[in-house]
């Protein structure tokens, strides 16, 4: 059973949908009791950084998440905004992030790069997997993996050993991090056909 955290940011029905498609049980909840009992979490989200953090706080989830993830060390997957919230801070807002990775969220600055690079970065992008990590989340995904992205901000991580995936839009950027039990991806695996299904299957199997 995977617990999907509902903190009023965007389309989480599609995550439940794809999990159902691959035969994995999940529930969507914002209740502390449910999250307390969770054995595996997904932190989804679209929208702005500050709204996301404020909604987590409004639901009194920050402390509980820290406990589940940092002390209990259950597996968690952050998606899109959910991934960015795992960093220290974002150029998009003033709120402090969860800080689970030694990373910041930055805005794409592509003005001085030749070519037309409109933002948000929307579409399917090829990704490169950091093979040194031997990430279980990404096993079986080494053959031309591609995922669907929608974002204007990206993650910049100081600890290169935590970078699980990179992609490119105007310049190379990090699109996945991993540290112990904590995983995050900038793209939308729930909207990425078989590539997404494989990633979720791997997460379910962790």
């Amino acid at each position: 059973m995977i617990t999907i955290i509902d903190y009023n940011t965007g389309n989480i029905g599609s995550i439940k949908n794809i999990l159902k498609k691959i035969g994995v049980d999940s529930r969507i909840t914002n209740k502390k009791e449910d999250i307390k009992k969770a054995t595996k979490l997904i932190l989804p989200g679209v929208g702005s950084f500050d709204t996301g953090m404020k909604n987590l706080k409004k639901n009194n989830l920050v402390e509980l998440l820290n406990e589940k993830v940092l002390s209990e060390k259950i597996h968690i997957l952050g998606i899109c905004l959910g991934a960015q919230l795992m960093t220290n801070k974002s150029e998009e807002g003033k709120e402090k992030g969860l800080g689970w990775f030694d990373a910041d969220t930055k805005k794409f600055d592509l003005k001085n790069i030749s070519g037309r690079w409109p933002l948000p970065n929307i579409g399917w992008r090829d990704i490169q997997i950091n093979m040194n990590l031997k990430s279980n989340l990404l096993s079986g995904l080494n053959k031309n993996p591609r995922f669907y992205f929608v974002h204007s901000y990206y993650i910049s991580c100081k600890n290169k050993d935590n970078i699980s995936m990179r992609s490119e839009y105007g310049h190379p950027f990090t699109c996945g991090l991993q540290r112990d039990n904590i995983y995050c991806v900038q793209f939308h695996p729930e909207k990425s056909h078989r590539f997404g299904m494989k990633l979720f299957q791997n997460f379910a199997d962790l």
Partner: protein
Amino acid sequence: MKVRHRYIPILLIKDNGIYKTRRFKKPKYIGDPINIVKIFNEKEVDEIVLLDIDASKKKRPPNYELLKDITSECFMPVSYGGGIKSIEIARELLSIGVEKIIVNSSAWFNSVLIKELVEIFGSSTIIGSVDIKKNWRNKYYMKVLSGTKRIYMNPFKWIKSLEEDGIGELLVTSIDKDGEMSGYDKYLVDNITKLVSIPVIAAGGASNYGDLKEIIDINNASAAAAGSLFVFHGKHRAVLITYPNEEDRQ
């Protein structure tokens, strides 16, 4: 690393079916929405745009039941437009698995709607859409309500104001080219991609995969959308769902 092109089928919903129009008229029945979406899903389509061409015109809300059935089959991004008059409607659509909200006529009739939607759901969730036609002097003008009502405002000014209100993408459809399969209105797309800095989705007129590639490579569209190209085959327009595979994309 080359950025992968985005090719988007636009599917028009009417009376629980998928239809295809010509110049926004003469809707021709294509098939059952669920079946069609399933086929596109199998072809690993980049994303899909669904437009309910009756909703705003008939002043009715989106067909949630149908959309729910469709999105449960979609493991790619789905954008929906048609009858999105309020925050509540947008919220309901997002909750049933629609990824992005497309607003056209409603933005014209409610000048604060886009701003409100952007503030609540974020820019990247909101697509602004405009339907553009040429008059007898070759000047562009806009129409709303599925091409039934003419708007007397400079379309380029309107597009700029949509960008300022925060839309994350712009869908531009040439009414004159719709269903004609005679190529995109490249001049129109050129003008708009020079005007705005957000991604532009070009629609109307694509007749082959080369058109899709060119409107992106040469005219700077961020995505190429098409209807007829993906649902018709041959000069008699037999219904056949097709989509470029990896080889076609080269």
